[in-house]
């Protein structure tokens, strides 16, 4: 009965123009720090560091040696198989060394360090990416892979793989993800405001590559200027719509977005293609257009540098591989009470322990939180208030999962759909007992993987 009621409610809400999913949380969005700031270009740093692993899938294969001279846009590592992506030099210069380097995920990873040529004009070789006109679908997919385009929304899934869905799936809709529900981040917001035409051009390329006739750009209602800019630039010959969405975290999560936009539910363990959808982040769509426009592979990206712990918040175009240290220095450095430097937003972002870690293709922003914001809070036992159940967008029972995690009953957690948890952190956010639920679930996922790999 509750389910039928919910279905009716969601239909009523949709007919009233409220496109959203159920559950979720409302953290303060803190986007006012940078939402109004135009995108600026950061000068080239003295050196850039390019890890070979900056996308989902197999790491790229090294293609340069120490001492080599590279021009901006040259391939320094090639894709290793289909679910992989090449890495390109983001600045002209000399390969200074190839060694382990701090990776933003907290590990060490093989990276190419390029000493940037001081007086180079940083003009790339002419057209490394072919002209789009007249390319077949397969040629587009090939060109997108060669250009090193990956998802810029955080997960860095190779874009060309999404453009070649499994043959048995029929995709009828492309959803462009302009939700940007993470607090502080305004990268996608500024892209939609300043590069609306480019977004639509990217949509056009995707529609061509996928042979899909319908595209919907979902944008949270708190970005009216972005919605207006996209609506103004709508191409007259394509079926593209801009859909304002309810403001709620995690609106930008793939499954939530599909639910909000089309009222379709992606089955547990399946990909969006199983319900006829391909989702692409709006920044990635713009980049897709950019590589074909300029002929230059993915060598730079737009990041938001924000938070009350950084002196001059900004939206910046930076070369991929720019060290966090250089980026923060350009933004006036950290304030006295700065405490935590995050890659990504405060809900799912990764805390950095080494400011030498470079900006990757998938780095949406760098947020510096202050001591007041990250103050350690006392944890209490679970009082079964049930707030996490009302927050979980995947309709799991985090309270139960948390108890199971503490008891290390990972198989039971598996049966309680731990696999569907996307670590959005909504449960931890609302928990009045300050139980680190998301952290427990991440550790449990790892432990479960190990147990499964070890075999019965």
């Amino acid at each position, binding site marked *: 009965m509750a389910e039928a009621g919910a279905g009716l409610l969601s239909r009523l809400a949709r007919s009233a123009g409220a496109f959203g999913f159920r559950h979720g949380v409302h953290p303060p969005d803190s986007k006012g720090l940078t939402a109004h700031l135009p995108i600026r270009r950061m000068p080239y740093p003295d050196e850039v560091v390019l890890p070979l692993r900056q996308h989902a899938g197999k790491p790229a294969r090294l293609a340069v040696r120490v001492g080599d001279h590279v021009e901006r846009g040259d391939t320094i590592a090639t894709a290793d198989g289909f679910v992989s992506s090449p890495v390109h030099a983001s600045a002209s210069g000399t390969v200074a060394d190839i060694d382990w380097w701090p990776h933003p995920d907290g590990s060490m990873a093989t990276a190419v360090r390029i000493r940037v040529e001081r007086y180079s004009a940083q003009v790339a070789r002419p057209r490394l990416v072919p002209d789009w006109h007249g390319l077949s679908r397969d040629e587009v997919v090939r060109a997108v892979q060669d250009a090193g385009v990956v998802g810029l929304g955080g997960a860095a899934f190779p874009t060309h793989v999404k453009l070649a869905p499994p043959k048995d799936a029929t995709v009828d809709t492309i959803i462009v993800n302009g939700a940007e529900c993470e607090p502080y981040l305004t990268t996608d917001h500024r892209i939609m405001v300043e590069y609306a035409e480019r977004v639509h051009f990217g949509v056009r390329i995707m529609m061509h590559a996928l042979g899909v006739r319908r595209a919907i750009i979902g944008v949270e209602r708190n970005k009216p200027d972005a919605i207006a800019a996209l609506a103004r630039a709508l191409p007259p010959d394509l079926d593209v719509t801009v859909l304002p969405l309810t403001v709620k975290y995690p609106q930008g999560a793939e499954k939530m977005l599909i639910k909000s936009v089309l009222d379709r539910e992606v089955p547990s363990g399946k990909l969006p293609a199983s319900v006829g959808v391909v989702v692409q982040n709006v920044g990635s769509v713009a980049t897709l257009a950019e590589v074909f426009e300029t002929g230059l592979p993915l060598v730079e990206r737009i990041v938001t540098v924000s938070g009350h712990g950084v002196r001059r918040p900004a939206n910046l175009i930076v070369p991929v591989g720019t060290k966090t240290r250089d980026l923060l220095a350009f933004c006036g450095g950290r304030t006295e009470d700065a405490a935590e430097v995050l890659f990504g937003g405060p809900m799912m972002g990764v805390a950095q322990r080494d400011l030498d870690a470079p900006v990757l293709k998938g780095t949406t922003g760098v947020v510096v939180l202050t001591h007041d914001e990250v103050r350690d809070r006392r944890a209490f036992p679970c009082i079964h208030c049930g707030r996490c159940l009302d927050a979980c967008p995947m309709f799991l029972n985090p309270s139960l999962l948390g108890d199971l995690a503490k008891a290390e009953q990972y198989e039971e957690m598996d049966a309680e759909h731990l696999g*569907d948890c996307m670590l959005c952190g909504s449960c931890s956010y609302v928990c009045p007992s300050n139980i680190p639920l998301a952290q427990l679930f991440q550790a449990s996922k790892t432990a479960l993987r190990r147990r499964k790999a070890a075999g019965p």
Partner: protein
Amino acid sequence: MTRDSSRPLVVAASPHLRGRDSVPTIMWNVVGSLLPIVAAAAWFFGPSALLVVGASVAGAVGTERLFGRGGTIADGSAAITGILLGLTLPAGMPLWMVVLGGAFAIGFGKLIFGGLGYNIFNPALLGRAFLQAAFPVAITTWPAPAPHWWSLRGDNFALPLMRAGVPDVVTAATPLGRMKFEHQGTPLLDLALGTTNGSLGETAGLLILLCGGYLALRGYLNWRIPASILATVALLAGALHLADPARYGSAPFMLFSGGLMLGAVFMATDMVTAPVTNAGRWIFGAGVGALVIVIRVWGGLAEGVMYAILLMNALVPFVNRATQPRAFGTATAAAARVKGAP
């Protein structure tokens, strides 16, 4: 730059932001919203009310301090147990019994299970059940209104093992007792305002609703549980009243008499001992409501809220299990499995 690198970075797991509510915020808000009810009790029952609630809190908090893990008094939950227990007792109760009840509530109702969050039964109600078993006469001695506000409503300062029986306390029946044993009603306005006889905190129904409403608005109390309890009681009582108006009280009478309001709003909603799912909360409430009617109408007692809630507390694990939310994207998978089965 050099200064940048000299300062240590905080490295924590995501999410890096937390909501503003914490366990102490919730608990102290509940304490705060119980205070008007304590004040009303003092207005109706004189200084005896404050003595009883004070003794109950002292017993509960003292036990938490003595046997609890360090620093657990600050979370406010022991204070809630103490106040709630005190509000379920008659004004004339000897204080040593009340202290004992508070100690039992925390010691055997909560700490023995592992402290906050681990208990199965509502501690305050367990404390009251203990007192009812141990001192059946004292807990059902309802003093009649006293001539002066300041006069004690019973022998609050009686000592253990002394013959208590104080002859000069005039007693009077509660509305539920009058209905059950004498088939006499009580004016509804008196019930709603609280100018009737009974335990300290159960008389002022409207005030309890008001305080509960505040907590529900702030999100510190789940409204589904009281709504479900009150709706079930109203429905069943209404039906019975229609069948035999002389024998059974009307729905409003049933709602506003006895400890139902206090129990439905403040005890059944105890997060630790209530279901975590919304569907479970409706079921839990309906169960409490039905049991209240069963005990009141067919049981040997005039009042049944305490046992109704305690019985449903015991069923909470099953209710939780039976009402697990359907994980996103699993209905279709289940359907596919069924389809795929031979």
